[in-house]
């Protein structure tokens, strides 16, 4: 792929010196430093797990890579594109063409049927509707979403059903880079196995994957390495 020549260090995700703090203007201007000197790299075909205690900053780091949290400091390169300080249209293009994301919860859009929710990333790339819907059906079937639900909006679905719709949407495209936030949470063992297979297949075709998995067995099954974000926690002034 032509972009590989632009990538330093060979990673599809290359992070260095990343810092992040939140300033709560309406709560007395409290400053929360949550990350400092974050660094990691994910190569094609590799799955890396972010680990660390609750509140350590796993989701924060993942959101900075997705681009909905602003990166205050350092460099985050995804498929050769620098995200720190990027223009909206660069992030939009990256999300349309290279970067997939399975968020922890599905954001449901009223009135849009499940099949269309899942097919949307393919449609956004310009694939014909019939082909996009065919792939969506195949994936929904594989994830054991009953066919009678496909034409309904996921608004009324159970948590596990919504999460599987979300996963179908995330895996409908062969993204070169994927972010997975708790993809196996709230799934029964049969569906969990399907998701782990999907991850393994994505790795096999060369995707670079960064994931958060509370489930240690899932981590052991698909991840090649772990990165503990506790190492990126800023030194806190305990006397304050």
């Amino acid at each position, binding site marked *: 792929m032509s972009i590989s020549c632009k990538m330093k260090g060979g990673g599809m995700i290359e992070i260095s010196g990343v810092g992040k703090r939140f300033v709560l203007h309406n709560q007395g201007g409290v400053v929360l430093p949550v990350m400092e000197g974050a660094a990691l790299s994910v190569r094609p075909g590799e799955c890396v797990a972010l680990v660390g205690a609750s509140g350590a900053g796993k989701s924060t780091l993942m959101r900075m890579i997705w681009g909905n949290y602003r990166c205050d400091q350092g460099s985050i390169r995804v498929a050769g594109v620098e995200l720190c300080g990027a223009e909206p249209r660069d992030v939009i293009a990256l999300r349309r063409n290279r970067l997939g994301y399975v968020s922890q919860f599905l954001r449901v859009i*009223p*009135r849009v049927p499940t099949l269309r929710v899942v097919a949307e990333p393919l449609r956004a790339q310009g694939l014909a509707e019939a082909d996009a819907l065919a792939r969506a059906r195949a994936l929904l079937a594989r994830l054991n979403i009953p066919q009678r639900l496909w034409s309904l909006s996921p608004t009324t679905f159970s948590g596990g059903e919504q999460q599987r719709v979300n996963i179908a949407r995330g895996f409908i495209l062969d993204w070169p880079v994927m972010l997975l936030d708790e993809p196996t949470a709230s799934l029964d063992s049969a569906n969990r196995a399907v998701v782990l297979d999907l991850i393994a297949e994505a790795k096999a075709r060369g995707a670079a994957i960064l994931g958060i998995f509370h489930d240690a067995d899932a981590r052991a099954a698909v991840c090649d390495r772990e990165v503990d974000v506790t190492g990126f926690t800023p030194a806190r002034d305990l006397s304050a």
Partner: protein
Amino acid sequence: MTPLLKVEGLGKFYGRHLGCADISFTLWPGEVMGIVGESGSGKSTLLNCLAGHMPPDTGRVMFDTRDQGLRDTLEMSEPERRWLARTDWAFVHQNPRDGLRMNVSAGGNVGDRLMAVGARHYGDIRRQASDWLGRVEIDAGRIDERPRAFSGGMQQRLQIARNLVTGPRLVFMDEPTGGLDVSVQARLLDLLRGLVRHFGLSAVIVTHDLAVVRLLADRLMVMKDGHVVEEGLTDQVLDDPQDAYTQLLVSSVLQV
């Protein structure tokens, strides 16, 4: 790539009262930009200056015209600007009454715009009008009824059909879902979302509803007291707001 719209240092005063000031941004083809902010923050003022309804006091509004590339719309002649407004631009008003001809049939409202750009063949015009009524989910059987007979949501959908029938490249919308019931809003939003994606429209949408921007806008601009206080990727502004006012705005609504 040439930007579709390039705004530099735009400002507007009403006498000594500030409407909006120091507004600069670049809109690229296919982008949808939302503008949010409290009542009186200058959103409609800005939109009306962009769309040529009102001359700003300072700044430039450059539009990528089909034949001459980027041109300052304020330096165009009045007929040139009117032509743009009928062809490449569309404006969806909050109140459908401001954007529709209430004593003309639904079909006439849509056909009207086609005729303004030179369509003459009655059969073609009627066919296109009927096709567009279908797209905005108005039963083609009601083509000869006047908008007066329609519900608020239908009127708004008719206004959208009237605006989009000529294939504009840039759509301005001022509170397109305001004044409608929540369920009607959801339907309209879904429709707008589909149209925006399908035609790859560029749009500037003013709204006070953060759920609307989350659904429709790629980018977001937050205004307060006539000024832009924050702008960026929509989900970044909503999920990680930097400015004190934006933080207040985002935290005062239930999760969007």
